[in-house]
């Protein structure tokens, strides 16, 4: 995942992962815990229609101007 070979994970990789999580939550104006709850609820709904869905779920909520933009990536298997 981090480049080729057996390069061990360095501090900046950890920082980048942490930043991506915290900024998603900041932008959504949801706490990280609420964000996880939202993802769980969303997954439960999608599971009713796509039971074989991949578990991986990625959600972003952003406030842009006066609009709220929700982007969800929910890979499904047909």
């Amino acid at each position: 995942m981090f480049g080729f070979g057996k390069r061990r994970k360095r501090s900046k990789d950890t920082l980048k992962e942490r930043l991506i999580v915290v900024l998603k939550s900041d932008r959504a104006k949801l706490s990280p815990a609420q964000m996880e709850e939202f993802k769980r609820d969303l997954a439960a709904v999608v599971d009713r229609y796509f039971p074989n869905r991949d578990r991986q779920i990625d959600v972003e909520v952003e406030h842009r101007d006066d609009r709220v933009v929700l982007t969800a990536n929910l890979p499904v298997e047909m």
Partner: protein
Amino acid sequence: MRARSIVVTSGKGGVGKTTTTANVGAALAMQGERVVVIDTDVGLRNLDVVMGLEGRVVYDLIDVFEGRCQLEQAMIRDKRVDNFFLVAASQTRDKSALNEGRMQAIVAELLERGFHRILIDSPAGIESGFQTAASGAQGALIVVNPEVSSIRDADRIIGLLEARGIREMSLIINRMRPAMVKRRDMLDIDDIIEVLRIKLVGVIPEDEEIIISTNIGSPLALDKGGKKTAGQAFINIAKRLRGEDIPYMKLDGGGFFKRIFGGA
């Protein structure tokens, strides 16, 4: 950058807003633009000392706001370069003296008088001082350091500027340490752009010369020799703001500074 009035801001304090304002302003003036830099950090003014003009402040921004003087009386001319002016913040008043309407009126007056560029040095934080500074701006320079709190705060600031309708925003990464980037203990340029999702306009290396130039009150960008790496980085930022295509070189081991800041 098409914007002629530009707020220099960061959210977090101590990342280099004031140094950036002084140096980018100086570099723009050296390149022939008529430039005014305005300090809006009321109660904690510093742009005057960073520029070495503290001995010449008679009237300040709040005096203009409250009608105690005309705008031109508060404009201190920098004698080291043509067409470069400072409007200092008030050191004795507090932020309650700030006023968005008056800020906008001052910027409009300066633009009407034919100044090419107004740089507004914002206070840290997201409160009224920042909001007043942003109210006068069409564009923004976001200054970050490659560390977690600065980047998180910058992301918040970007959201607030978007909410104000400011569309033109460019990123300046300050205090970059290539040796740490090389051993992957510091975010690299691409990481920061990817996370913040705004356009880059410059990278400033951590450089002792910045501290030395600030000690003596002489912005590096005024140094005609232009040999100092950080000074050259500020000059490059000014050129990019003016639309020149100054290439960025990829981080490449030990040659990083020479390649980014020397040749280019």
